[in-house]
């Protein structure tokens, strides 16, 4: 247990404590103040939080649902074994493909003169950029995030999908249940706790993602981690305590997520015992 506590102390508790105290310190004299945290509710930080939460929710739910469907399609009985191996391998790679390389890969594909954009413009006569699409917008960020959110979902949910035994389906069928009833009364309740956990994980994954969005938009779309980055490493903004207040705001949002998640999970996991 000792290594765990040492690890938690140095890499979790101390830094978090530092952020918490710093968030309530005044930049001028180091005294206690609520100003930094109060500033989070003003522009532009309010927009940053709204954008971050929106992008995280959208990509967590879309990624969660799509990932679940793909995982189920590949893992259920009847799918050849190699599909499953190939999918997990691919997902393992894709889930970790993020940051600047991913952003640039998308710019080269869907950017203003990306390969796909060029193809659509020249062959189909339809330039997506003329119809309101932009890779360098919130929608663009969501598309790029889905690229690693879906594979992550597949990796996380596969064991749970695997746990759905064929015998249960057979049993419910022999009792006269149709497919909908099986899912309504057996499959979904069993999957629900894992699904919920996975979506919370995806939310956190998107909420904290930094380099991908930064590489894609250079901070043109305001997200909380990017704003914190501006405070920490930029040449222009210079107020570390406000940066710490922003980090504190991220704690708070994730805390709320956990508050929703824990009781729901407790209720829904009754079926699994």
């Amino acid at each position, binding site marked *: 247990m000792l290594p765990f506590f040492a690890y938690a102390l140095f890499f979790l508790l101390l830094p978090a404590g530092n952020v918490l105290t710093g968030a309530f310190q005044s930049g001028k004299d180091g005294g206690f103040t609520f100003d930094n945290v109060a500033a989070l509710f003003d*522009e*532009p930080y309010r*927009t*940053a939080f709204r*954008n971050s939460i929106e992008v995280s929710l959208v990509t967590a739910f879309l990624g969660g649902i799509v990932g679940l469907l793909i995982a189920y399609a590949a893992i259920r009985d009847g799918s050849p074994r190699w599909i499953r191996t190939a999918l997990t391998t691919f997902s393992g790679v894709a889930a970790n493909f993020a940051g600047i390389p991913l952003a*640039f890969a998308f*710019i*080269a594909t869907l*950017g*203003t*003169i*990306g390969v796909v954009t060029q193809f659509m413009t020249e062959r189909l006569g339809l330039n997506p*950029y003329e119809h309101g699409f*932009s890779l*360098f*917008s*919130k929608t663009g960020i969501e598309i790029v995030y889905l690229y690693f959110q879906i594979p992550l979902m597949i990796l996380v949910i596969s064991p749970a999908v695997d746990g759905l035994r064929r015998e249960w389906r057979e049993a419910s069928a022999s009792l006269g249940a149709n497919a909908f009833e099986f899912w309504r009364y057996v499959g979904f309740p069993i999957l629900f706790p894992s699904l919920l956990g996975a979506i919370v994980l995806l939310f956190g994954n998107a909420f904290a993602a930094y380099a991908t969005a*930064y*590489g*894609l*938009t*250079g*901070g*043109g*779309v*305001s997200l909380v981690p990017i*704003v914190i*980055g*501006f405070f920490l*490493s*930029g*040449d*222009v*903004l*210079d107020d570390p305590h406000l940066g710490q207040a922003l980090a504190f705001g991220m704690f708070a949002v994730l805390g709320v997520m956990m508050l929703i998640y824990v009781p729901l999970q407790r209720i829904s996991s009754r079926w699994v015992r």
Partner: protein
Amino acid sequence: MEEFQEQEYEFLRRLEEERIGRRSLLKRGLVAGAGLTILSSPAAALAARKQALKEPPLLGRTLSLKEFVAEAKKEGRLNVIALPPDWANYGEMISTFSKKFGIPITSADPDASSAQENQAVRSLKGDPRAPDVLDVGPSFAIDGANEGLYAKYYTTNFRKVPRAMKDGRGFWVGDYWGVVSMGVNTAVVPNVPKSWKDLLKPEYKNKVALNGSPLSSGSAVAGVFSASLANGGSLNNIGPGIDFFARLKSVGNFIPVQATPQTIASGQTPITIDWDYLNLAYGKNFPAAKIKTVIPSDGVYGAYYCQAINATAPHPWAARLWQEFLYSDQGQLIWLKGFSHPALFNDMVARKVVPKALIDALPDPAAYAKVRFANRKQIADARSTIKTDWPGKVGA
């Protein structure tokens, strides 16, 4: 700035006196020593000299280059930070220095910002990996000097650096300057824009990019400054520049992609607002993109960077040797080869030591005639305006 100049004169005068005083004293001492005992005097002089060499000097002129090299070689290394090899030709600068003096250079974190450089000095105090020399924006140089992060040092050519580009107390000295330019990828954009106004034309839809967000990058702030000068703003009022980018965004011409060498080479950012020396270098390095560098006719904004020596540098002699090299003709020409205007540019032109080819590679000198530099207060004001207005008007 005024009081710094006064201080500079005073300081240099006193140093000069002290130097003359010390030298004549030494001479007298030698004569006296020779009179007393012939055998011991060279040893005593040597010892005195060694004592003097323990501390790096304040004035470059007091020692010969040879002595610098000898001391720097003893330290055996130089740590630099935040010098991207494709920025202002720093790649060649580093390799030439290493080869010429036989001193290896550790180049840490080439893409670090000025804030990170100062932070490295603070947090790596006493660490052998700490940066010896820094290349920071002026406002960070002023802050760093006031905080005591830098060592005083007057390079041999300090006097020739234009007055507005140096710290009278010797904590930092301007190194090179450039102006905001438009790097146009003519493979994608055949019609080259000439001014900020041109950028609003519909033909430049989704084509104009900045080299970062002005919320984090000082050079992006410069781009907004330049746009402001072109649109009725001034060095005291950057507002029209922010409004211009908002308009550029609303007509669909602005793409908020951070321009990088990759996006520029591949044409993803067909018109890049960036320093002239960077755009000119991209033109040379990516011939396929056929990049043309345009100094906008309606707003010419320039800025310089500053050299400073870490007050607690692990290799103080090598740091001073590096500065001496930077401000030698050879070093200055390496910067110029990277298309930035070195601090001693005017002096070197007057002495006719700049090869014609290097001057020809730069845009027409007339384009630089209207260049304006903001002072520290103007930059600070502009930043706070950007901080409050940019996210709402231009950011999402």
